């Protein structure tokens, strides 16, 4: 039987990927971030997952405003790395797990989560940066990856409460998969940041600390946050943190906090990293 062995919340700032790709991750600006994320790489290596379900948002690369699925699941065997306007990131191609992905599609839809199905799609920094942060620079990714995209580009995104319930449904579906697989779930994006308008650069460390604590001890409380509360208190793009709640829902009730790291700034944002284990 498949089971969820860990959850990772991780920012997906493109500049983090660029620092690795350009070899500047050791400079004074980036060294504190990459040093601070090292324990997460060690933890994940010890966990030895077979598959990751990676919850993220596409940034006008695989998807555009033409069609905007709220939840989309990638069922392909391979996902090419997207050219986001300056060439694809020099990272390994991403291999999927079609059998588990289709199992998720079937179970989630019958469980009333109406997933859009993607048989072909490129993956952008939203997916590859969290992989780079948690796996490092590797010749190939150490596990299969099932991309799950959430719309956070066109308002309104799904609510945090809805994302949390999706996570719970993912857990039910994974536990019914007959093969013996170790599964980790990523929730990406955040933490507080605002990329637009006169308020660009907004960072709220108090909110982020509250959110990190809530992710560990009281995610139900976080599911009550409204979209306006996210945007007001964590910046307009801080709303990406609803995707963290999808990961948290997949971990079940109590969790153990294996590692936490918080850093300001990574480009325009506050970065968070949280490693959780179900108990």
């Amino acid at each position, binding site marked *: 039987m498949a089971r969820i062995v860990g959850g990772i919340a991780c920012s997906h700032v493109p500049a983090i990927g660029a620092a690795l790709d350009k070899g500047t991750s050791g400079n004074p600006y980036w060294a504190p971030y990459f040093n601070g994320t090292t324990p997460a790489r060690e933890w994940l290596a010890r966990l030895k997952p077979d598959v990751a379900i990676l919850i993220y948002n596409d940034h*006008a690369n695989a998807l555009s405003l033409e069609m905007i699925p709220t939840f989309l699941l990638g069922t392909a065997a391979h996902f090419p790395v997207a050219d986001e306007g300056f060439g694809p990131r020099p990272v390994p191609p991403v291999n999927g797990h079609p059998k588990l992905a289709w199992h998720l599609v079937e179970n989630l839809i019958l469980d009333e989560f109406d997933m859009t199905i993607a048989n072909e799609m490129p993956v952008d920094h939203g997916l590859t940066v969290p992989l780079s942060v948690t796996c490092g620079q590797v010749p190939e990714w150490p596990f299969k990856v099932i991309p799950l995209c959430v719309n956070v580009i*066109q308002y309104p995104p799904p609510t945090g409460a809805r994302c949390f319930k999706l996570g719970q449904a993912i857990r039910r579906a994974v536990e019914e998969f007959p093969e013996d697989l170790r599964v980790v779930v990523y929730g990406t994006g955040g933490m507080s940041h605002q990329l637009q308008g006169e308020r660009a*650069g907004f*960072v709220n460390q108090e909110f982020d600390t509250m959110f990190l604590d809530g992710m560990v001890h009281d995610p139900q409380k976080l599911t009550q946050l409204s979209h306006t*509360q996210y945007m*007001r208190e964590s910046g*307009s793009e801080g709303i990406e943190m609803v995707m963290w709640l999808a990961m948290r829902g997949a971990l079940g009730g109590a969790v153990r906090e294996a590692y936490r790291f918080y850093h300001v700034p990574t480009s325009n944002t506050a970065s968070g990293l949280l490693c959780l284990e179900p108990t």
Partner: protein
Amino acid sequence: MAAPRDYEDIPGTYVYDAERGRVGYHLNMFCMSLNDPENRQAFKADEAEYLERFPLTPEQKQVVLKRDWLGMLKVGGNIYYTIKIAFCDGLTFQDVAGMMCGMPKEEYGKMMLAGGRVPTPGNLSKGTNSSMEKK
């Protein structure tokens, strides 16, 4: 029931909602077209002519040609899309962020290094909501 737009009370913030999506669609699809290297080349060769390929309003064309980053948001631009013009120009997210809030690049960078733009009563609310949600 109409969806609440209480987020309009957040200062300096342009939520890409139904209202903006309705007017900004073609502007953002123009930006999306710049993912293609051939289109980037065509745009650079003659910006005004390239913009004719898209049904934009005169105002939308003007803000693009003038690189009025804040103005783009006001006529339906979505930052994840308008940033593609900046990438085409060789600018970074931080360059554009500084220009949107009217800060020199260096000053903006210093603010981020010092922990970012911290919350203040003035940047949390315009004070326009009669029923501002409780923290």
